[in-house]
């Protein structure tokens, strides 16, 4: 069956450019998470959506990061004026319900390289 998909898989941006990363969660999944994973590190929580509501954005590192899920399905993570420290893999995950311990299904990630 269809899992979580992310696009693009790879993105190279020049410093100062804006980028948009897309996540297509599993159909019907209520919860959607974004994570940032630096090389050799574990995923770091960025933000959480329950349907279209962004209930937690405490992990977004700066106001250059913005996420949305307007219709409660597809989500976009936007990074404005990219910096070299933004280079990382950005992971999206979805889960069926809104219970914190529910299994999260991850996409393959988008590898962002900022030059």
């Amino acid at each position, binding site marked *: 069956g269809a899992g979580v998909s992310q696009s693009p898989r790879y993105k190279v941006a020049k410093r100062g450019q804006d980028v948009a990363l897309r996540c297509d969660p599993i159909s019907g999944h209520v919860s959607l*998470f974004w994570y940032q994973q630096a090389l050799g590190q*574990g995923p770091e929580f960025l933000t959480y959506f329950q349907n279209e509501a962004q209930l*937690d954005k*405490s992990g977004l590192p700066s106001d250059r990061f913005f996420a949305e899920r307007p219709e409660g399905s597809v989500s976009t993570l936007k990074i404005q004026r990219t910096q070299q420290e933004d280079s990382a893999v950005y992971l999206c*995950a979805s889960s069926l319900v809104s*219970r914190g*311990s529910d299994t*999260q*299904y991850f996409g*393959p990630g988008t590898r962002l390289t900022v030059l």
Partner: protein
Amino acid sequence: LAKTTQPISMDSYEGQEVNITCSHNNIATNDYITWYQQFPSQGPRFIIQGYKTKVTNEVASLFIPADRKSSTLSLPRVSLSDTAVYYCLVESGGFKTIFGAGTRLFVKA
């Protein structure tokens, strides 16, 4: 949020049983213990979850003592394809999931 501590890395040989222990001294009453596996260039994948005692599925077993301050993931008869990073998480009603650095398991032939 409970913080977890795991070994940074472990080595094993094919066919051996591997046990990875995770400490979570501040686990709360409502917290579940979840383990994920991550291969290079892939997102993490759910392995197993438990609350207390022992849980077993087709992939692994999870042992949780009565005080729940630690848990042990047991992988029976590992193969080369089990080489990956394994993350221990404790999570409950909140959604700010904390992964930590994980344990890098190397399985040798």
